[in-house]
């Protein structure tokens, strides 16, 4: 999307979500994501990360508050129009049908009548799966499958990506490659990304992180301020140690070994 948009890409205003009145999964959540922002979403299991991403993608409807996408209420978009602007990537990839990789990746074009900028081949190349284009998705390893779905998401070409744990099940090599790819998209195409992740040490490299506990924002901003010992201990309910190496790197871990 061009910088002609002055409104934030995504804006959540006092959003709450609950299945039953006595327990709020997400509570009074207000934040926005601007053009080309890359935000890491951190929090313990059950803290509400996935729910926040599902609310922001419109899969779940908020019990209270409002969500706007490029200045318009999220629910006012037609499904197909929303799908051109926003892409959601779920945590669980549960597929047992033998689609060919190429066919699966091409599903990213479903919202379009006229194919967008990149082709299925380019998307497969970007995730290193071009030589597996004709393979069955059910014959790929867990990491390869995940990359095939990521290629589909890339082909969909939305300006906002909401990714729930896309690094799970990936070797360190592909974790780094995927992060590079996403950063390229952000830098070159001004794509905004909100990504839930578990690895605090990877989150340290992000420009912006959001720390969640009990469906509320504990902190949002640069990792150096948000991912402090006190905040992390509060969020994860475990003692945390922050080490700095001689070369200036930072490493976060637990002071006890198991």
């Amino acid at each position, binding site marked *: 999307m061009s910088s002609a948009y002055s409104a934030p890409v995504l804006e959540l205003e006092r959003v709450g979500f609950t299945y039953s009145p006595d327990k709020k999964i997400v509570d009074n959540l207000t934040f926005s994501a601007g053009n080309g922002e890359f935000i890491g979403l951190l929090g313990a299991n059950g803290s509400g990360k996935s729910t926040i991403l599902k609310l922001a993608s419109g899969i779940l409807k908020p019990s209270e508050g409002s969500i706007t996408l490029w200045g318009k209420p999220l629910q006012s978009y037609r*499904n197909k129009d929303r799908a051109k602007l926003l892409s959601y990537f779920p945590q669980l990839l549960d597929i047992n049908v033998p689609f060919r990789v190429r066919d699966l990746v091409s599903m990213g074009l*479903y919202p379009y009548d006229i194919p967008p900028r990149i082709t299925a081949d380019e998307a497969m190349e970007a995730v290193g799966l071009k030589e597996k284009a004709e393979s069955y998705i*059910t014959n790929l390893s867990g990491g390869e499958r995940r990359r095939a779905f990521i290629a589909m998401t890339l082909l969909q070409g939305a300006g906002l990506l909401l990714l729930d744990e896309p690094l799970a099940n990936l070797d360190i090599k592909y974790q780094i490659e995927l992060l590079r790819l996403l950063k390229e998209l952000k830098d070159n195409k001004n794509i905004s990304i909100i990504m839930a992740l578990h690895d605090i040490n990877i989150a340290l490299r992000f420009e912006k992180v959001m720390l969640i506990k009990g469906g509320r924002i504990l902190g949002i901003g640069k990792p150096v301020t948000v991912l402090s010992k006190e905040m992390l201990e509060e969020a994860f309910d475990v003692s945390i140690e922050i080490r700095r190496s001689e070369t200036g790197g930072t490493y976060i871990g637990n002071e006890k070994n198991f």
Partner: protein
Amino acid sequence: MSKIRITVLIIIALLIILCSLFLGPRVINPFGLSEVEKEIVFSIRLPRVVVAVLMGMALGAAGAVLQGVLRNPLADPYILGISSGASLTAALGLLSGFYSFGRFTLPLTAFIGASLVSLLVGAFGWKRGGLWPERLLLAGVGLSFLFHAILMLLMSVSTNEGLRRALLWIFGDLSMADWSLIPYGLVFIAAGLFIALLRAKALNALILGDEFTHSLGFSANRERLLLFVSMALMTAASVSLGGTIGFIGLLMPHIMRFVAGADSRALIPASALGGGAFLCLADLIGKSIFTPMEVPSGIVTAIIGSPYFLYLLRRRDVLSI
């Protein structure tokens, strides 16, 4: 590659249809038809071929749709209780002396039963504004058991000759096929197939799960409902045309995933084509092999289809669904 395979499939289907017209208990030379032979071909064999093709198409396509909607490889159009519901209403209609529609009575009562059961299963499977696959499946299995039990009860206490006939018919009998029913069956099957083909992309998305379905720009609830209606129309029409034929709805989609691939845009038409050709062939074999006796087509489909399917399963390195 799959284009070549589909072309081959179409040619095989046409050959089977031609064979069914001219082969059988009496072999007919297509280039020198006598008056009697004309009568056999156009009044007996052609309507029977058309019914077999329509039923097979409906079952194959309905199976491909339902396996995707339920995300379950064991789903077959009958698993939702649609056929047992149809049998039950047909039997009840006959028992209560309901013959008002003449030869249409059986198909009509069966169609009403199939439609009512579809609605009932849909109602049980409905929660929070949408159909839930697991609920649909369990409701269907539960209702199916109930209808079977009532049907068995009726059979064991009734001496009605019409009921016996109805049961034979409902377990798959094409020998009564004539032109009168075909237009009605055709309309429902064509409508179901049309919806299924129109929503084939959404079906692909549903196979990936509701979250991807949403992300790709579809409403999972709406698409599931449409596809369920399409499946119910095809199944109900097929049951009322010639009763219950096993195997095709369950296994034809699996066979066609080997041939045409898993993409529903190819799989639905391929399953329809394969199902139609296969039932036609099964019927030809069933009526020729022990002449003058006829083996019900449902038995033939299972006896020749299952070993072929097991062979494919062993041979191909494809986890089909």
